């Protein structure tokens, strides 16, 4: 498949995978909902060989591979296509304050969790976001964060 300099195009297409960036530098990726999606929950972006379901969501699971974690922008049913936010300010990210989250703390998501939690005061390989607001309650709640936009490793705890 020779590519003229003017245009490039693949011959096949998965339904999802499109990345969009808004005027504020926020980035979003279109994915297949492999399960019921809850707005604000962090999901791992994963892959399979079926163009109808690729890429797709997965619950966070321990894995020493750098992967994208995105925050669901809407509630969606299993089988829907939906957008995950992967970079930029986000005021609907679910955060747990089981361990107090202070503004400027780095946040991660760990194995099977449904919300981000405090990672450390310095960035680690697990850091998904940085808190733009403090949060200390134990209930998962929508919290203002800035998603870093880099791939991360999901730790066991």
């Amino acid at each position, binding site marked *: *498949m020779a*590519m003229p300099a003017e245009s*490039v195009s693949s011959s096949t*297409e*998965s339904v999802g995978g499109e990345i969009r960036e808004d005027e504020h530098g926020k980035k979003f990726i279109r994915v297949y909902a492999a399960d019921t999606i809850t707005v604000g929950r962090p999901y791992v972006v994963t892959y*399979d060989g079926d*163009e109808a379901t*690729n890429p797709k969501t997965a619950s966070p699971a321990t*894995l020493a591979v*750098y992967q994208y974690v995105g925050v669901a922008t809407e509630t969606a049913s299993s089988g829907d296509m939906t957008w995950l936010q992967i970079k930029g300010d986000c005021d609907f990210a679910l955060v747990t304050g089981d361990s107090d989250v202070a503004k400027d703390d780095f946040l991660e998501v760990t194995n099977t969790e449904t919300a981000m939690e405090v990672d450390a005061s310095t960035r680690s390989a697990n850091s998904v976001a940085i808190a733009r607001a403090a949060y200390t309650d134990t209930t998962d709640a929508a919290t203002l964060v800035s998603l870093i936009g880099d791939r991360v490793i999901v730790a066991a705890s």
Partner: protein
Amino acid sequence: MAMPAETVSSSTESKGGEVKKDEHGSEFVRAYAATATRGTPLVLTLDGDEATNPGTAAAATSAVYQLIVFPTSTETSAGFQWMQYKGDCDFALCDGTAAIAKDKYLDVVDGETAMTYDAAARSVQSIAVAREAYTGSADAETLVHLIGDRVNIASS
């Protein structure tokens, strides 16, 4: 050097390195190769010469995360061409000596000219996921989905 908001530009330019994305989200980079075989996985490399930068190299063991690219055409003379690194790709060379099933992850190992079976779960070597099975021992063009992330290259 203050940059007006309307334009951004560097003062020097390598001939390659341009990235293009198609309407399906597939991504391509313009890279240099001395010769190229369509669909062969190559490492995207860098050097200090604008005439050959970025370049390509055969897969070699490395614990550095690097981008793997796939020439879109066979070329017998040196030059730049578009190489795909993300999205659905129906011309990626695969070796099915270790049977490749749909949905399995694929990697490229040291000295190889085709992708091979990596694992059922993604690893730091995973370049792509197979969109079809392939079990032949000869390198053959196979439909895969290139993840587009940088990877490590294992020795075997």
